[in-house]
């Protein structure tokens, strides 16, 4: 039998020494970065504290500034403004202050922003190739109401990068309100639910001049545009879109239908309940449950027979939803349910008890 050759792992020691050396170098580098970063961070925080003192005075001054007065920029600030890091800090502070203010004070802060030529910084960011910097530039220009850059910003509402696109859409709305929504005409990318919330928030309290745009958007091939338009129309109570919205119930997109139902629930027409009931049998369970739920708000005694039929649906969830709406529409309320012959049988017993409980509360 031959002796085993066990020398395979006897790799040249120099290889390991080099490996260990490399590890140690990387380790030292990591230590260095950690140490350096913590020192840097502390220094920045310290600097920011000092800058805050200086800047707070100017911002306070700007907020209460009258038309006749001018802002006094100290030499110290002027000197500091040569540093890009300080300029970034000033922009952030102004935005922060602006978000917490309203009225003329905001215009003063915008003025200060322009005096300090920080808009140039923001505009430069707009042309950055790095998407997050570009987005930051858009955000700053939007919040600082820099309409002169609106053309550039509008072009970015269809940018392939989602964040850039979202910030551009928000900025355009910040600058022009409902008029800014014209980007919906050309929106090629889907608008996420999160962005829709952002946009709805920006449009809160504003009123559209007309509903022409909506009619167009409700027929958009971009489903997210239709959904957003439905949400917006619902939130701003746009009555004259009823027929367009009812048409949306025929969409293949569940989300559109659900939002259309929300609109109808909030702004019902003459025969809304009948219309939605007519859609009941052509839709899936989620939409059916939404219809049954909507009947509680817009239904009448006309729908009682329909709801009664649901008590014998195979699906217990439909039974329960039907019973709930029934308890609201029937003149006898929840007691009507108790009068049923199967009221003591499962699952109706529990369903009816729950409804009774709810109604009592």
């Amino acid at each position, binding site marked *: 039998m031959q002796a085993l050759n066990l020398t395979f792992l006897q790799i040249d020691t120099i290889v390991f020494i080099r490996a260990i050396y490399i590890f140690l170098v990387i380790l030292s580098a990591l230590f260095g970065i950690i140490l350096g970063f913590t020192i840097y961070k502390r220094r920045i925080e310290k600097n920011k504290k000092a800058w805050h003192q200086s800047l707070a005075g100017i911002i306070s001054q700007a907020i209460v500034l009258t038309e006749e007065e001018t802002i006094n920029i100290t030499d110290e600030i002027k000197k500091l403004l040569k540093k890009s890091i300080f300029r970034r800090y000033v922009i952030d502070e102004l935005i922060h202050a602006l978000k917490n203010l309203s009225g003329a004070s905001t215009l003063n802060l915008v003025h200060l922003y322009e005096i300090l030529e920080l808009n140039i910084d923001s505009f430069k960011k707009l042309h950055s190739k790095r998407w997050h910097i570009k987005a930051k530039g858009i955000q700053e220009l939007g919040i600082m109401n820099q309409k002169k850059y609106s053309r550039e910003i509008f072009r970015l509402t269809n940018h392939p990068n989602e964040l850039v696109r979202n910030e551009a859409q928000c900025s355009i709305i910040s600058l022009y309100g409902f008029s800014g929504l014209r980007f919906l005409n050309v929106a090629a990318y889907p608008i996420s639910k*999160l962005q829709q919330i952002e946009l709805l928030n920006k449009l809160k309290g504003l009123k559209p001049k007309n509903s022409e745009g909506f009619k167009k958007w409700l027929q958009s091939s971009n489903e997210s545009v239709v959904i957003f338009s439905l949400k917006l129309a619902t939130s701003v109570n746009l009555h004259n879109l009823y027929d367009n919205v009812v048409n949306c119930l025929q969409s293949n997109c569940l989300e559109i239908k659900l939002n259309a139902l929300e609109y109808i629930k909030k702004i019902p027409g003459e025969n809304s309940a009948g219309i939605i009931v007519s859609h009941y049998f052509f839709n899936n369970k989620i939409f059916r449950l939404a219809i049954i739920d909507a009947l509680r708000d817009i239904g009448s005694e006309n729908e009682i027979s329909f709801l009664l039929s649901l008590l014998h649906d195979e699906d217990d969830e439909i039974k329960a939803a039907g019973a709930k709406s029934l308890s609201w529409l029937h003149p006898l309320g929840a007691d009507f349910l108790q009068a049923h012959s199967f009221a003591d049988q499962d699952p109706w017993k529990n369903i009816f008890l729950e409804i009774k409980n709810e109604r009592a509360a």
Partner: protein
Amino acid sequence: MTWQQFIFDLFTYGILAYSLLLLTFYISIAVYSIAEIRKHLRINYFTDFRVLAASDQLPGISIVAPAYNEAANIVENVRSMLSIHYNKLELIIINDGSKDDSLQRLIKAYDLYKINIFINEKIPTKKVRGVYKSNNPVFHRLVIVDKENGGKSDALNVGINIARYGYFVCVDVDCVLEQDALLKMIKPFLEETKTRVIASGGVIRIANDCIIENGKLIKINLPKKYLPRIQTIEYIRAFLLGRMAWSRLNGLLLISGAFGAFDKEIVIKCGGYSTDTVGEDMELIVRMRRYMEENKLPYKVNFIPDPLCWTEAPSDYKILGRQRNRWTRGTIETLWAHKKMFFNPRYGLLGMVSYPYWFFFELLAPIIEFAGMAIFIFFTFLGFIHWPTFLALLVCLLLFGFLYSVFAILMEVLTYNQYKGRKDIFKLIGTAFLEPFLFHPFVVWSAIRGNIDYLRKKNTWGEMTRLGLSPNHSQPPVAAIIKPLSGHGWLLQKIIHAVKEAAVYVVILLSSMLLVKIYELIRDVGHFGVPKNFSDVIKFGIINDLSFALNIAIIPVTIFILIFLLNKKIARFFFVTFSLLLIVIHAALAEYFLETLVPLGADLLGYSLADIKQTVGAAGISMTFILSAATMVALIISLFIIIPKKLKFNVRFSVVMISVSVLASIFSIASITNKWKPGQEFSNNISLNKSYYFYNSCFRSLYGRKEKYLFVPATETAFEYVDEAHYPFLHKVDSTDVLSPFFNKKEAKPNIVFIVVEGLGRAFSNKDAYLGSFTPYLDSLSGKSLYWSNFLSSGGRTFAMLPSIFGSLPFSKNGFLELGDQMPKHLSLLNILKENGYSTNFFYGGDAGFDNMDKFLTANGTKIYDEKTFSANYKKMPATSNGFTWGYADAEVLNRLNEATAEMKTPTCNVVMTLSTHNPFLINDQDKYRGFFEQRMKTLNFNEAEKTEHRRYTDQYASILYADEAIRNFMNSYASRDDFNNTIFIVTGDHRMPEIPMSTKIDRYHVPLIIYSPLLKRSESFGALSTHMDITPSLLALLKHQYNYKVPTMATWLGKGLDTARSFRNIHSYPFMQTKSDIEDYVMDEYMLHGDELFKISDNMNLDPVTDDKKKAMLKSAFAGFMQKNSTLAKTTSMFPDSLLIK
């Protein structure tokens, strides 16, 4: 490549490749996670969560929090969760049949009342006992469900059935959530436009020692205790690096059960949480992903790195062990349940990357690591480890692990930086440094236990005792303070228990070895009488046996302790079985020595199974041995049963005992003590520990490190080599003819007859034999012959005879004959004579297949006359009790020669190898020769003491007398043949018979050489030392000079030729091979090297130990030179170029 090499390489390279692959994955994960975290941070910068919080467009979320026996903290935990910022939220607490007063506390604290509710059981669950809501409108979001105990999964399923909203977040009730946790958690569901986010996971952070008030995290502190602190790093590593990378790849398989958000519709479609696994969180994600893949629905499982959920980490080993055990079982169960996906391209990334990664690097990693450790320990004891490489690799691996942790810490500092103080960061780094020593081994061990528990079908969760996070629990009760200690102690206690038992077992093992030693000594003395230096024999014998037992005890002790932690009974069974096996083998080895007088070594490995059967059959297994062995086994089993019950050691003694064993093993104490010898060879062998000798010899033979032999420059005595690079043994032939002066020349080519007598040693043959001569005929023959009194065989057993005498050939690794069919083409006396017109024949009473003799002879063109060619007229030797006989007796074999060659016309070279003097020494007419033996002792004038001593070996001596007489009869018979006057007879022994005790190492090789021929001019006796290797060169020189034979001018002879100096001297330098596994002896000048011992050879062939470093170095160097050449032999197909062949 041998199969051992293959397995070894497979293991070592496999582990290396696995480790490198794992490290590559880690590096990729780290790099990949950087990009994902950076992206996340950049995007999040633009998200105003205040807008989200205020929005009525957010989807509703149901928090589902199962609680089991959480009474201590549940009220505060619920309060904490109710304070979360989210508009459409319901909080469902499921009391999973708690045995404490959790429900009552909740009812009281939140003014709850039982409501009637219809639960649509979309997922079947255990019975719901009641649902509660609060009378206080402030707590309108709260729903408490009381149900029968069914485990966490069942409770979560109840929560899902009750949940109103389309998304649910499962949370461990004892977790503390950040106020904006749900806003951040829901964000991924709202962001995605192309694919459906089916689940989202969040980072879990360690809350130990953080300040929490009213269920809110007030101040983040680094845990003070080591265990939670190391888990802090572990969690950062896992969440910040690992899961972020997998999330980017959309390959995430696990979202922690402590905090995760799910799309309820998909969860219900998948059937909810599985109640059949303890890893329900992972299993659900895998099942959801599988569902989406199978239905070809685009989806995503997201992960966000923000620290949103804080939980208490186990702070003692016991709880941690349970947790890791459960995680392991959960992983196995999940992977097993979804094994269909393993490398299944249908499942895309999930089947091709995620699943295999989890299988190979999460599930198998601890198993491979544990197996690697076990094999490493094993290799360490076998001496396989190349320590510089091992240490360098170890340092590299440790550094990598440390580096990875530091990188994770750096990522934490650069991103969320929860631990602000620089001191905390360096504390974390220090903790990471200790991880491989204090934490990682335990985690691996827990995973192994998890695997074992899985195999044992243990599917419990394991109690997770928590100390609590609220300030009320900042001063833990006494029980809680003790808990970590007792938890820590759990493992320690078990180890101590194991060590105590192991110590007792070691003592029993030592005692058993002593018992065997006593038995061995009694039998040795009974057989061979009191050996020389008997007190030393006893002393060293006991020391050797004890040291061996201590040395080897580390193996059963280590394994025992490891198994003991899992199962005491199996551990005990293992130790007893191991000890029994060890002792039985030891007893068998002692018995072998008793029969053969030589300790059995690795030569056992050199024999085929047939050879072993033949040898064992020849020796037979005595009834005494069988009875003794049975008694011994019974006795030892009794010791192992009785003693542990009676004998209890204290911890200190046990630790000392085991430490001694460990130290004995580390310093290989057996190798030290086995060098201590009483002096005389036989006494040395009796005191030797036979097991140590056997295992050590086998180990060195099988796995001994490949020696790097020094190149030895040619000396004045060396040959003139012609092409050492290709034919290391080929040299110009020294044409010195020392025999011609003694021979008359005849025209006719002489016949040659070799009689090689089995076991014929000089110790009992011819003048001055120290045991007295028992070969009267050979004595008289040598008086008429050329006689070498100080002649040596080249081997300690028969295997070396043919190649040495007839080919002067080197040994290769296990003897030249062992090369079998791979024997390189070689020159020999036999094939040269054949070329010169001779008929060459071999006569042997047994099977010539033994030791591959037939292969050698066939290769040399020699006709074989072995037992198969004997007619019925020939008589076999008597059979042993089990019916075994070696074959035909010497007289019969010699007669066979006469019969076969009498009529041959061509010159012949006949070789006879005898057998009668081989163990079991059974000869025909044995009593007659026993009588001869008695007679011979009288003739030799032995005193009674000498007679008594010799009578111990009556059969051996009787067989020698028989062989002597057989040769006498043969010679007398041959004398009547026509060719007698033209025949040269050469008589020698193949080696000295070991069954009669030997006095020195060289005794084993000391044989006579007699060259008798009517052609001789005169007789002569030579005192100079020569060996079997010298016969062929000298004989060929004679034949060349006298008869002008064609003899090659270059040859591969190891021997230079016989030395015909009358007085003792040695001009040769030769290696000797005692057994098929040992080439340990070397003779040069008047010195013999045995291993590391140097002896001076006296003129009567005694050995005296000497200390002469210079001489030793010379011998070692020359020996190394031979070994270097010898090591090349197995790879060569021919020992000389074809051009050398005689035309």
